[in-house]
């Protein structure tokens, strides 16, 4: 095990993938000379050259579409859309082409495309740069959606995504890039099918993913200090959801709190609530609750941004409320 940042983990994953397979290339805005808006591809242009590391124009719809086309025709493109905020410009290509082509062609076509993008708030970049729309992506049949939260997953899920025959969308929470973590051995062997219990516990299941995982773990630690033993489940893959791990946890603890940085109404947290309703209703000792973002364009000032998105304190308070331990 060795320590490195999430950013470095992504870079290692990119580099290994590029070195291992000549069909792999990286394209996106500023992935080359600039080294990636979040520095994930720094040095790769110099090492691998402009054919493999392609700076694109500001044309999200077209370079995502070109990724689909290249994937249809023998390549293994990794497209970096700088952030999920800009991916709105590419949604037509994603929903109408990437997600449909295999099925609509009767199984003739395959789109082995990997798209990476930063997501989330927490860096005071205001309303147009703070979306958490991975829940939208998780709605779309035909694509897979990943949310690596650890450095091992940041690298490992990227490598695993490149082995998938279908389009995979990877959401990297922008808050995580500078965070350090331990890289486990053989990250390339991680699965894309299973959620992970990051902290076993018995009192209640906190179900979360991505940037919020660390807030949930922090809250669990604080709760442990007060004698409350929460389990923390990291979804890892948002589509398809690992229903079994979710339900197993809830059947054990009988209570669930979902933490999701999406705006509450219609976020992924709602789907998880619904799946628990459908699969573990009779196991529940209390209604499932959710800590999500406030229904507001995320504001710039820190105190308002903090108030708008999930925080460990709010998780702690919700858990206590659910366990009837006062607040």
């Amino acid at each position, binding site marked *: 095990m060795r320590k490195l940042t999430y950013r470095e983990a992504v870079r290692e994953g990119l580099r290994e993938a590029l070195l291992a397979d000549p069909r792999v290339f990286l394209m996106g805005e500023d992935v080359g000379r600039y080294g990636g808006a979040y520095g994930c591809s720094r040095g790769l242009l110099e090492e691998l050259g402009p054919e493999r590391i392609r700076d694109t124009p500001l044309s999200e719809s077209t370079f*995502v*579409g070109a990724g689909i*086309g290249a994937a249809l025709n*023998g390549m293994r493109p990794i497209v970096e859309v700088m952030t999920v905020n800009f991916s709105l410009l590419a949604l*037509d290509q994603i929903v109408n082409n990437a997600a449909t082509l*295999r099925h609509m062609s009767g199984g003739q076509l395959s789109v082995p495309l990997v798209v990476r993008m930063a997501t989330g708030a927490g860096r005071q970049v205001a309303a147009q740069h703070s979306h958490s729309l991975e829940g939208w992506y998780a709605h779309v049949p035909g694509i897979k959606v990943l949310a690596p939260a650890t450095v091992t997953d940041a690298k490992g899920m990227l490598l695993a995504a490149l082995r998938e*025959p279908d389009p995979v969308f990877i959401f990297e929470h922008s808050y995580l890039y500078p965070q350090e973590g331990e890289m486990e051995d053989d990250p390339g062997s991680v699965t894309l099918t299973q959620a992970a219990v990051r902290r076993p516990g018995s009192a209640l299941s906190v179900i979360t993913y991505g940037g919020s995982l660390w807030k949930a773990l922090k809250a669990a630690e604080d709760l442990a200090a007060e004698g409350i033993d929460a389990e923390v489940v990291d979804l890892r893959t948002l589509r398809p959801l690992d229903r079994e791990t979710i339900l197993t946890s809830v059947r054990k603890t009988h209570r669930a709190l979902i933490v999701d940085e999406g705006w509450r109404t219609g976020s992924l947290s709602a789907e998880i609530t619904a799946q628990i309703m459908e699969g573990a209703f009779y196991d529940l000792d209390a209604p499932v609750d959710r800590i999500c973002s406030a229904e507001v364009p995320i504001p710039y000032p820190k105190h308002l941004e903090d108030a708008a998105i999930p925080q460990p304190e709010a998780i702690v308070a919700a858990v206590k409320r659910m366990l009837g331990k006062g607040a």
Partner: protein
Amino acid sequence: MANEPDRDKALKLLHDMLRIRRFEEKAAELYSLGKIRGFLHLYIGEEAVAAGAIPVLQPEDAIVATYREHGHALMRGTPMGALMAELYGKVGGCSRGRGGSMHFFDASRRFFGGLAIVAGGLPIAVGIALADKMQNRARVTACFFGDGAVAEGEFHESMNLAALWKLPVLFLCENNLYAMGTEIHRYESQANIAAKAEGYGMPGETVDGMDVLAVEAAMRRAADHARAGNGPSLLEFQTYRFRAHSMYDAELYRNKHEVEEWKAHGPIKNFKGRMHEWKCMTNDDLESMEAAIGREIDEAVAFAEASPWEPIEDLTKDVYAPL
């Protein structure tokens, strides 16, 4: 005007256009019988474009087309039965019946749709060409789209990216003067489409899309240019749709007279006339051609009729690759 072709070639060109025309006339008939449903966009009037352009392509070249793609798939060689079955929505269809009229696919012939979002195929074509270039294959990608697509942002972005990276894309605009019910001057501030190529440092050419030989010649120039590594071109084929936009269209937006004028120099009529001038076609030729096409269509219909429906149990098959 291009040189006189030899007799065999002329007969083939006429046959190809006529085959598209008769196929679609049959499709329209089957639509009114309820055998075909949903959207059906006919190519009637525009046959010279597909018939002239597509034979220029090599088998390993790629095609990306729109929802108005029956002619293109026929020209590419997908068996007519598979296309008719696709219109029916039957398993024998070229997309297992799942796509219908707007979504013909034939991977074995590198026919990548049949895409129904206007301009949505352009980025795909750019990517296919990028993959060819990165793999050092001297292939081209032919991307068909309508005049209406030119107004979409993806047209601009795709033209720029293809030109910037010198990708072997042939941007083939079938300018039939209307986007649904809106005439080109009502949606383009500058209606000369070929001239737009200049803004991307790309060659652009206006071509008489009613003249199958002119189409072929222009297409050959553009394909040679791309195959030689000189990058993309934009060809504007000036043509006209004789029928309604789709079977839902009441055609309130244009007058019969305009349509009749275009029909008067329609691609098939026009070419037949020239073949008579060249004296390279007899009435017998034409009759046996029509008869052969008629038989092919009858067989295609029979194939479609006989083809089974996809079982409902298979509904979600191939949403993802099988594990």
